[in-house]
């Protein structure tokens, strides 16, 4: 009888120990998982995007497409030059603009504008787009990524902050 008692006492303590460790694991896991996925939760709530100025409207002559760069609105101290983001700005007419991401809608390579033929070419797999960003040829399944834009106080503003990808 006494032996049985010690046995169950041991088993109980063991179970208690496991339970305690499980509890501690959960308490620790919560902040760890939260930390690990912080970039995802922040992105899902749209906290990365904000309006950025590309500079005065005068830099972008009407009817032309020009190269522009902006500093990504979300910056960390170790980012270096990676936050300097390029884009293509097409001044359609008046206050009507189209601002295209540099990234090809196929696999994200930097597309280049050729004013002579009025086309964007991707150097990687030969994706081609017309001046309005619509798909012209090659592997991309859609047109170029476009930033929402507005003209305010004589400057062009775009809503940017995230790397545009075909799945987004």
């Amino acid at each position, binding site marked *: 009888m006494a032996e049985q008692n010690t046995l169950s006492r041991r088993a109980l303590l063991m179970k208690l120990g496991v339970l305690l460790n499980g509890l501690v694991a959960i308490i620790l896991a919560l902040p760890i998982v939260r930390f690990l*996925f912080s*970039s*995802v939760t*922040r*992105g*899902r709530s749209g906290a*990365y*995007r904000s309006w950025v100025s590309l500079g005065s409207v005068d830099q972008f002559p009407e009817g032309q497409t020009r*190269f522009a*760069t902006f500093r*990504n609105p*979300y910056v*960390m*101290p*170790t*980012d*270096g*030059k*990676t*936050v*300097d*983001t*390029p884009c293509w700005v097409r001044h359609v007419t008046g206050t009507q603009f189209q601002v295209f991401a*540099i*990234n090809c809608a*196929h*696999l*994200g*390579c*930097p*597309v*280049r504008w*050729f004013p*002579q*033929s*009025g*086309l964007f*070419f*991707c*150097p*990687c*797999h*030969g994706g*081609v787009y*017309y001046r309005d960003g619509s798909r*012209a*040829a*090659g*592997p*991309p*399944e859609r047109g170029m990524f476009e930033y929402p834009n507005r003209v305010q106080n004589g400057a062009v503003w775009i809503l940017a*902050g*995230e*790397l545009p*990808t*075909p*799945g*987004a």
Partner: protein
Amino acid sequence: MNSIARIGQWFHHRLPLADSILEMVQHPVPRNTASWWYVFGSASIVVFVLQVVTGIMLALTYVPSAAEAWTSLQSLDHNVALGWFIRALHGWGSNFMVAIVLLHMVQVFLFGAYKYPRELTWVVGVFLLLMTLGMAFTGQIMRFDQDAYWGLGIGASVTSRVPFVGPALVEFLLGGPIIAGATLSRFFALHVFVIPALLIAFIGLHLLMVVKLGINEWPMPGRLVKKSTYESQYRELIKKEGIAFFPYAIWKDVVFAAIVITAIAACAAFFGPFGPSGEPDPTIIQTAPKPDYFFLWLYAILALLPPSLETPALFIGPAIVIAALLLLPFLFGEGEKSWRRRPMAVLSIVLLAISLATVTHLAGSAPWSPEMGAWSGQPVPQKFLQGRTALQRQGALVFQGKQCRNCHALDGKGGQRGPALDAVATRLTQDQLIRQVLQGRGNMPAYGNNLSPAETTALVAFLETLHPVGQRPARDASGVAGTADARPSPPTRR
């Protein structure tokens, strides 16, 4: 007792490991496995140790920060004595490691070593291969140059296509909204802590299984593996012709390891380190990123697949390959081991090797990429201009000025994205040329909005001159329209 033996005794008394180590290194192996075919596994470990050592050396100078990684590699290459050589050793070591691991796998596959009871050894080996490739991929990112930056962009684009969770997965992968400091930091953690730790653990497991289960015997054609009899047969074989791995079988491993390390050092010394290419500044867009050698096949496949098949192929393809590798020993765990009696096994290896070599070779020249500078850098060959009319020469100017040359070669120079146009007039009539230029088709954009009627007329006039001397250009079957060149020659009657 001399002093060395006494020190040995002292340690043995407090750290009784000697017996286990002796058991390990002296484990018996069948005499005929002391072969040059059995050296790839040990060579992989030797190269791995080299990678760990040179990796630690590099970490003494390297700074895993997006702002400084590239500059720290510059100072490794140019300011630190022999920093370039350590970088080169690490880079070439990575190439050799992937190659030797693959060779090891092919040998194990052809010798039937994955069969009973070594199924789990094979499965662990498959994970070791995946980790090795993971190290090669993350290592490329450590260079943090233009190729690494845009390569990450490609990785993000591919990841984003995962159904439902794609965009969230991209943010997880990048550690933020864009490719930046956090991205490099997490790939650094993977490359330096996570994957190496897993590699070491799995290598230990892999080795333990090899020692405990015994090395695969040399396969004899006709000697079939049966679960009921294999182990007793193997024990008998060991009893009859077993030799201690150390010192009787190991010397070939040692010699091969020395050859491999010498080869790596020679490549490092002669060819130097890989990259870094340009600075990781996204605003420098004059770049055409290309992956390192061992991922060129993937680059080629992404370019060659029809767009609609890309997404399924990207996710289902690798899943099928990995599943097939993992299931192999369970589906074919018994039976013939010798490659002499397994023609399908030999055939699949040959097929795989040829396919990989072909797409890798193709990726070297990347004919699917437009040549972005051809329109301004490659003049129209003289022979296509001599004796031409003013209109035709004007057309040649349009041809260059509208960047046609970026995709279409003349005289072997220019892009290869589209067909070469040296003899286009023999394939297309005037009407067809006009239609193709204005409306485009397939992989060619429509130029209708970007060419004036005068430019179109001139361009087509030039294109119509592109046919070999003595070969008539294509004509409309109705025979009425004809082309500029065909006009003087009326239909002949015999």
